[in-house]
């Protein structure tokens, strides 16, 4: 197990998760997270601030600029996860997993489906 590092902020973690599925551009990241978590709104400001920090910390990197076939033919900046990003996501997932186990032992999740 790698050295214990502080877990990622939730938004950063979620960004990593949706980027692990495939490369995405900013708006696509926001939509993916929004669809996953019903009722949450991701706005440009908080998204790009987080992306900037993640870029700086080397968790993600730009892949290439290309148009999104579903939207229009304007070129967009796509992001992908680096190996450091994958590690960070794994660590965070583990940490979350430990925490969820603890919560389950305290019966906090009683009655909920085992997700």
């Amino acid at each position, binding site marked *: 197990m790698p050295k214990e590092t502080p877990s990622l902020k939730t938004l950063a973690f979620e960004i990593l998760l949706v980027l692990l599925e495939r490369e995405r*551009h*900013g*708006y696509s990241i*926001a939509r993916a997270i929004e669809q996953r978590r019903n009722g949450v*709104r991701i*706005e*440009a*400001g*908080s*998204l*790009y*601030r987080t*992306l*900037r920090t993640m*870029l*700086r*910390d*080397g968790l993600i990197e730009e892949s290439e600029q290309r148009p999104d076939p579903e*939207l229009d033919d*304007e070129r*967009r*900046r796509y992001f992908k996860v680096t190996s450091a990003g994958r590690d960070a996501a794994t660590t965070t997932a583990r940490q979350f997993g430990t925490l969820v186990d603890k919560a389950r032992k305290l019966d906090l999740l009683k009655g909920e489906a085992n997700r």
Partner: protein
Amino acid sequence: MSRVPFFYRLLVRFFPSHFRREFGRDMEQFYADRLREAQSGGRPGAALSQWSHAAFDSARNGMSERAAALRASPASTHNAPRWKPRAPSGPPERRGGWRSLPTHVFADTRHSVRLLAKKPGFALSAIVTLGLGIGASTLMLSVVDTVLLKPLPYPDSEQLVGVYRIDPEVTGPSPTVSRLSTLFAVPYEVFEDWRDMSPVLESAGAYHTSSATLTGGDRAERLSGAGVTSGVFTALDIPAALGRRFIPADDEVGAPSLVVLSHGLWQDQFGADPGVLGRQLSLSGVQYTVVGVMPQEFRFPFARTQLWMTFSDQRKTSPVRNSGYLQVIARIRSGVGLEQAQREVDAVAQRIGEVHPAEVEHGIGLFSYKDLVVGSTGVGLLILLGAVGLVLIIACANIANLLLVRATERRRELGIRQALGAGRFRLMAQHLNESVVLSLAGGLTGLIIAVATRGPFINAVPGGVPRAGEIAVDYRVFVIAAGISVLTGLLAGVLPALRAGRTAVVDVLQDGGRGFVGGRRRNRTNAALVVSEIALAFVLLAVAGLLVKSFSRLTSVERGFEAAGVLVMPVTLPTQYRQSPVDAYVFFEELGDRLAAIPGVEEVGGASQMPFVGGMSFPPTSIEASSGIVEDIHHFSVVTPEYFGAMNIPTVSGRLLTAADRWSTDPVIVINEAMARKYWPEENPLGRRVRRDIAGDSIWRTVVGVVGDVRWNMDQEAFPDYYIPYAQNSLWFHTMVLKTAIEPTAIIPAAREALWAINGDIPARVWVLEDLIDQSASVAGPRFGIYVLGSLSALAAILAVLGVYGVLAYAVEQRANEIGIRIALGAGTRNVVRAVLQRGLIMAGVGVGIGLGIAVAISRITSAMLYEVSPTDPVTLTIVGLLVAGAALIASYIPARRATKVDPVEALRME
């Protein structure tokens, strides 16, 4: 990127430039995508919701990003994996250009808030001072805005006019609304002429106020109503909320009696029942059918009006042309201005004069209906607004002074920043920013004060504020408060800011940041501010003082009657008593006997009209004067013989009316001294005759006595007046006057019972006469003025005195070493105290002098509020001057004492 709305491009600017360079385009794209998606959903308001989310998010994150950029110094970022050159951090001193303005404002604001948080006492007192000033100004401005500036709540309300008969002999060539007493109401026939002959008046309606007694419920109820023709509704152009308004057919002679209810009455009395339409109401004994309900915002002619009735046939067919009681409201044809309309009605007046030669002198005057509604209240409101404005200016001066002192304390900081390359404008901007931050906090406090005090204030205005119902808390109040706050902040901050811009680097740094910092110019600015505070406070105090003096004159004026222990009880008889004068006479005889039998009642009189109870009538009258027969309109009252005793009105000559003056005996009258002086200045009026020229009563009455003058208004001399014995002219309305030997309020229940013992359907209204006088416009108005101006001037005085104290305390502190040296050289305590007091007195003296000049300059405005007191009354002005000087002296004494405590050794060591 042209598809991205301007708004989104603006949002991106919340972020610092390095961030925009990196992600600006992406964010704009993001917004465009989001907007497209929101719009494709077709949900209305989706775009709006999207914008507000985006705005909130950008503001928050943009500001945080800027804050982060400022926090991170280059030293702490070297370990960041991908450090890019970023914008200079720390207070952005050198980056010029308007592009960096938001960054500057943000940084400055943070700096300001930090500085203020370090001195919570200073910040709090400044915010409270500003809050009071801004709150009072916001309150007054919002009232003035609604009452004077907003259009009336009727469609195209600028086309609405009041139409009056004017008499050029009385009014002069140009009658104005401010002299309402010179505008005459008209009878129905004249109104019909105007309506039918003036095509420029698109719709014209006549109305008169009229109270009505609603019977049929548990207890008879007195309602405030108005008789109106259909034209009133057409002119005002507000549709009925339920049912219908009156139509021209309802104005015909023989049409049924109809009533339209106000929204309030409909709710309170009829439980908002839509089935009320078609119901019969018994109003003062006449059956009316309800045809409609007006919406809540329809307030005509007054906010208190509860119902509108059609005219009775009797009113519509009265042939009188020379005495009227109807007001006329009309809508000018659209596209026609007031002046052109006036020219057209002038021609109508001329044509009427050709048909009715007696009216050849009469004109028709058109007046903006809004001016009529606002009336003289406007002037009072503007005066209050002025007073409030003065207090705000004083508050500004006070804050400016505090900021100046602080600016001096921060000289070292400023000097260093300047040496590091900060431009003068940057330093000035920082100072302005601080005062604006303060004033915005003060503005928020003020807004709360204004909103909280608005209702109580409006209710406290005696006689009410016109259009009070329209005054609501809306965005205009916020705009006003925000505007005043920013203006205040700039005003208070501009002097300290200019000072900051002038700081000379070398001086400060050489000085080492301690020791002597003064400089005469600085003290002179502070002193000038304080002097102007004193001057303005003096003006407010002087006006308040003059009002107090005027009020004591007014209330101690000889009224001509004794109100102590007097109860009054106006009674209007229902129709069943109106058939013959005998019925009314019998009723009031019986009521008088029953009231007189109540223990504690000494005397019971009665009068058709009496002072402070309301109702006056001026019928045309002929008088056998010394100079021959004089025709004039003239006031009279019908009274019982006991009235003079109950009111303690003295006999001057001849005899009073007695019980022997009966229906069958010779008609007689008693006149007052003013009437005797006017018509018979040189001779005895006894035996001369007077005749009312009204239908059915053209008989000559002989003068048998003269009684003392009685004032109908505290601020007006008694006018010529005469009294007709009740037995010779019984009426169906009468005010019973009860002179009591005990506390009058104790008798009120028994008096009510006495009335209801005869007829339970008559509303009983019993008042203490002294209360009525107290609440009358001529007394309550000035008293209200005293309260408001008194508290404002007290506030002003306190602020000014604090200003004096602040400046002197500061000066003493600044000159501590100078004073120390003096003491070391042998100056006595007394010399030191005297030197400081002298400064205080000089400021006070100059301030009072300037204030005196202002007081004289505005004396024309003040004199309008005063009763028999000169606006430059030397006694009042001297007392106020001494008061201000005394307060200044006390405020100077504390710093003066402190000056004597300066330890010479300590002072010299500092050097």
